[in-house]
């Protein structure tokens, strides 16, 4: 393959609080791919995303953005390549909604260059994409959890990056907005998306590829029909499940039967 690989990790390790959370994660995201990251609570999904986002420093291995080691990048240049929707909502602050979205434009402007009309158009378009344009002048703190999440997604869209990391983006959202959010992100042309998702069926429905994580390692990597199997679901979540093929999308979907003890 000639093209540069948007995102790749090599034997990525990360220690937090003296405990190793990631034990050499190998991951590769191709251009335009939607990758669903699944795995049980505490398996290291968030840590992996945060290490890729350079919030945590790896204790070993490396992350490569466009084929160049992340450590060699300037912070603002990274933010022009990679946008992140994390799980933190922020507590002790309040900004107007439009201002929250404008923050996504910082990477393109830096501290001094003023934002222009083009930026405002971009931000309003991003708000429209998540159905929040009517809220532009409202206070962020006054929004519901789901509305906040959509505004934060708009900030990610306004950042206009080729790589998007989503950490449990569907939390706080009802099913309608869950589908809306994932569809919006999926529709972005040529954008590589790495999304951790609790809901394996959503991951299988939208992912071009699934990565299954367990105890800080990738244990399965492939197209949804290869990854989403009863055996893997038992290994990851200790559940009995039946996997069916959805006739509309052709994607595998799991029906969960019962919890089972670890073998």
């Amino acid at each position, binding site marked *: 393959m000639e093209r540069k690989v948007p995102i790749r990790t090599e034997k990525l390790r990360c220690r937090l609080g003296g405990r190793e959370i990631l034990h050499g994660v190998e991951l590769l995201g191709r251009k335009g791919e939607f990758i669903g990251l699944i795995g049980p609570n505490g398996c290291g999904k968030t840590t992996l995303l945060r290490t890729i*986002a350079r919030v945590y420093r790896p204790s070993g291995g490396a992350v490569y953005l466009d084929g160049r080691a992340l450590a060699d990048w300037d912070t603002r240049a990274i*933010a022009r390549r990679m946008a992140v929707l994390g799980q933190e909502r922020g507590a002790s602050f309040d900004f107007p909604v439009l201002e929250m979205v404008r923050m996504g434009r910082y990477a393109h402007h830096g501290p001094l260059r003023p934002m222009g009309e083009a930026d405002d158009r971009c931000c309003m378009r991003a708000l429209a994409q998540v159905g929040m344009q009517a809220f532009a002048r409202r206070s962020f703190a006054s929004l519901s959890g789901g509305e906040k999440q959509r505004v934060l997604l708009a900030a990610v869209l306004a950042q206009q990056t080729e790589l998007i990391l989503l950490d449990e983006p569907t939390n706080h959202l009802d099913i309608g907005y869950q589908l809306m959010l994932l569809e919006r992100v999926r529709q972005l042309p040529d954008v590589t998306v790495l999304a951790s998702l609790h809901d394996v069926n959503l991951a299988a429905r939208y992912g071009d590829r699934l990565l299954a994580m367990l105890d800080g390692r990738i244990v399965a990597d492939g197209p949804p029909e290869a990854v989403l199997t009863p055996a893997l679901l038992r290994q990851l979540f200790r559940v009995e499940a039946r996997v069916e093929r959805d006739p509309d999308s052709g994607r595998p979907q799991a029906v969960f039967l019962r919890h089972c003890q670890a073998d």
Partner: protein
Amino acid sequence: MCSHWTRSRYLLFCLAMVLLLGAVALLAISLGAVDLKPAWILQIVLNKLAGRDLFPPVWPDSAVSIVWELRMPKVVAAVCIGAALSVAGILMQALTRNPLADPYVLGISSGASAGAVAAMLFGGLPLVGRFSLQAGAFGGALLASLLVFLLAGAGRADTTRLVLTGMALAAVFQALTNLLIFLSPDSRKVSSALFWMTGSLGGVTWADIPLVCTVGLTGLLTAILASRPMDLLLMGEARAITLGVETVRLRRLLILLGSLLTGVMVSLAGAIGFVGLVVPHVARTLFGAAHRRLLPAAALMGGVFLLLADMLARMLARPEELPIGIVTALCGAPFFLWLLHKSRYRFGE
């Protein structure tokens, strides 16, 4: 609640604050042991600024020295210090993402006092020459800032831990200050201790003004230039990084700038408390949390606030002059308690 002031309305407010500042300054100069006519004051000041007699001097000669030599430098200093402490408060609040952070509450002012007293006692520091008092105060403030943020954990400091750490540090530095004063050959030990702990504009002369003005203005301008990344820092460390902010560098800048402003102001007037707490809060309720608008407005409001406090300090116990820190603490401390009581306080709400 979230305010959406248009640009012109904001500028109008700032202009109004400048006019108010002028009016309060005039009033502040006219009040004192000897009351003077405001018209005289304006004419004396304009004569001095023009360097010649624009207005024929119809006032007694003593009026000139009272206005220009005694009261005017204090008024300028009050404005500078009020503005600088408000800006320092905003910097600390962005750094800790906590609206209760303030140089005085966090013990940084006390650190500056200790540094200043130490510099005074142990003589001039090399290199900094005649600025050794200010350099000592800056060093003390910087040490206190580093300690409070290391101990309480900048960026993820919960209020209880931050405030308690600040309280303990303030106690340590105040004890150090007092220890140094009482070991020193100073003949007015009690009043010196009171000066460093509560602050006073009593000893200000024109010679002090250039430095505090320069530092105050530089601090304000630098903070305004950093206002956008400061907004992002309020979103939390992780989000700020992924939005493109060099958070480590920004934190360093905020600590340095906050310590410089606090240190230099404390070296001139002692530890005047709570300005950096009250003023940013009021400014935020008017303009929201975005720093680009918050900083200039808060600086102006801080100037007015300290001028008013100075006036009160001189009126309450006429002809005695109260240390100005008593007045700011009397307004600020209850305000602090009220903020602490409001459990779910948010920036700009």
